[in-house]
């Protein structure tokens, strides 16, 4: 636009209308090409190539080795344990997430923002430290160690420790997803239900739950992926007892360290498959909720 510099004696009629065409705010083709190229190269090298590598390595010694690796009794035991851990930590944290989101989103109370921050704490804790705190609490030399030993309860280097550490790590997922969602939805629909005579349980089941179901599912899918894939925290508390306290990621580690690369990647490919399914479901849910992808 040059009219402004042309002098002071112009009138409004002389000023051309501001360009509404895309060209005024679109990037030149070479910029566009360069940026797309950089993004593709970056994502290709850092995301796509590793994903392809997992499957490539898994089948590098043939389908026979692959099938042997994933049907090995130790691998099956690891899968069972991983499923068990998820089967406990997912529902427990989902129930917590819904309860916390209900209290936080539907009521006004003192200390609310403190509670919201506290819920996110596990996100800020290193997985290794998450494992360590339970070793310090329940381990043989831990605060409760002597009492536990006396009563014959084993938590560390046993399944309960793995479950507890995983539940700690995955604690915020559902709450973190539901709190903003329910805050945004407000309380009007619930109030309408109250004025129409619905009971507390009816309000939750018929009004609130259908409204948050997609968000809840979204949180659960991410929670599940993390619960099944957690490595650091579980590694610290598990004791790596084969067939007993090895989850799938720990089994992958053992195979890899024993130079059974193909077998390690075979088991890893199942976890990678879980990741791909998680991404697809996540994307479908985001699309159904009509919103953009979000990081945790």
């Amino acid at each position, binding site marked *: 636009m040059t009219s402004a510099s042309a002098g002071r004696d112009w009138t409004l009629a002389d000023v051309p209308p501001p360009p509404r065409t895309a060209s005024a705010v679109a990037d030149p083709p070479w910029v566009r090409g360069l940026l797309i190229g950089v993004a593709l190269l970056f994502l290709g090298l850092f995301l796509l190539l590793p994903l392809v590598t997992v499957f490539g390595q898994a089948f590098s010694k043939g389908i026979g080795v692959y099938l042997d690796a994933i049907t090995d009794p130790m691998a099956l035991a690891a899968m069972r344990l991983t499923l068990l851990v998820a089967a406990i930590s997912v529902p427990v944290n989902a129930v917590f997430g819904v309860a916390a989101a209900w209290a936080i989103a539907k009521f006004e109370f003192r200390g609310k923002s403190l509670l919201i921050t506290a819920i996110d704490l596990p996100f800020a804790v290193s997985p290794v430290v998450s494992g360590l705190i339970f070793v310090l609490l329940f381990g043989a030399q831990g605060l409760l160690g002597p009492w536990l030993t006396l009563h014959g309860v084993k938590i560390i280097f046993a399944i309960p420790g793995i479950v507890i550490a995983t539940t700690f790590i995955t604690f915020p997922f559902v709450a973190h997803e539901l709190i903003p969602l329910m805050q945004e939805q407000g309380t009007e629909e619930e109030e309408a239900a109250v004025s129409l*005579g619905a009971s507390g349980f009816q309000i939750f089941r018929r009004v609130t739950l259908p409204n948050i179901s997609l968000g809840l599912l979204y949180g659960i899918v991410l929670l599940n992926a993390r619960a099944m894939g957690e490595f650091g925290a579980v590694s610290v508390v598990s004791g790596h007892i084969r067939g007993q306290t090895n989850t799938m990621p720990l089994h992958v580690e053992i195979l890899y360290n024993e130079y059974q690369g193909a077998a390690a990647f075979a088991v890893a490919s199942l976890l990678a498959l879980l990741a791909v399914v998680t991404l697809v479901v996540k994307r479908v849910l985001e699309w159904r909720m009509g919103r953009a992808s979000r990081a945790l």
Partner: protein
Amino acid sequence: MSIEARSITKSFGTFTALRAVNLEVKEGELVALLGPSGSGKTTLLRIVAGLEFADAGNVLFDGEDATERSARDRRVGFVFQHYALFRHMNVFENVAFGLRVRPRRERPSTREIRERVHELLRLVQLDGMSERLPSQLSGGQRQRVALARALAVRPRVLLLDEPFGALDSRVRKDLRRWLRQLHDELHITSVFVTHDQEEALELADRVVVMNQGRIEQVGTPEQVYHEPATRFVYEFLGDVNIFHERAEDSRHGGIYVRPHAVEITRRPIGDGAVSARVQRVHVAGPTVKVELVTEFGDLVQAEISQEQQRRLALTREDAVYVRPNESRVFSEDYSI
């Protein structure tokens, strides 16, 4: 059912929403709570509905204290400003909700529910829409679904929060007329909140004008418009000019006069006329709008008929005389 609110007080933190408000609504009446935003009208409505809790005061239904009765048990139909329709339920399910959540003993049969819902949908002229989701309806249709839903439980009182607030002006006017007809048919005690004086004056049997947590005046539309009790009511219910007839008038608040009650003449006529100069004349529209400045410096808006304008032929800079017909003076001790 009659409603009575006795010295209701409510504050949110440091903000006082209601200051010892008293209100009575008679059986079968249609009452408007009128006021600017922040005047406490919605809070009062929500307290009557049991959705909000007063810090002090009582709510009585038919003379019976209902202050501690839960919203669930009050049998109040509430229409929310943004309708609060259950977004995952279709129109039919929205309307049926209040019937379906009744305890098993009191719950109507499926057939009865269906009949009742369709009867209500016919009443609100949405019978063909029962399968639609709220997101597939226009604003006016959503409004009517919200009304049908509230009526489904046979409420003893109908409360509406800014019922037309989210609609465009055309739909607003149609719905307004339709709601009045509906009220005349059903005769259910109704209270609605609005910030639009035209809406309140046209629709309500009685208007309650609120300001800053207090009731300024309660009266029929004629009373509040023609005999406003306070300066606030006068100013809120229509355009207003503040006039000084003598220079020393500036000591007190001056004379309040509506634009249509300003008389313009070419010659001084009798008492109370003040000389003025015409600033602008808008001839478009049903009336002619004239802006003038009086000899005391007051800016005055007047509305005259096209007929009068043909006679007076006012143009800019004309020297004329203006006189307030139907004016009011408010005592000086009143202050906001």
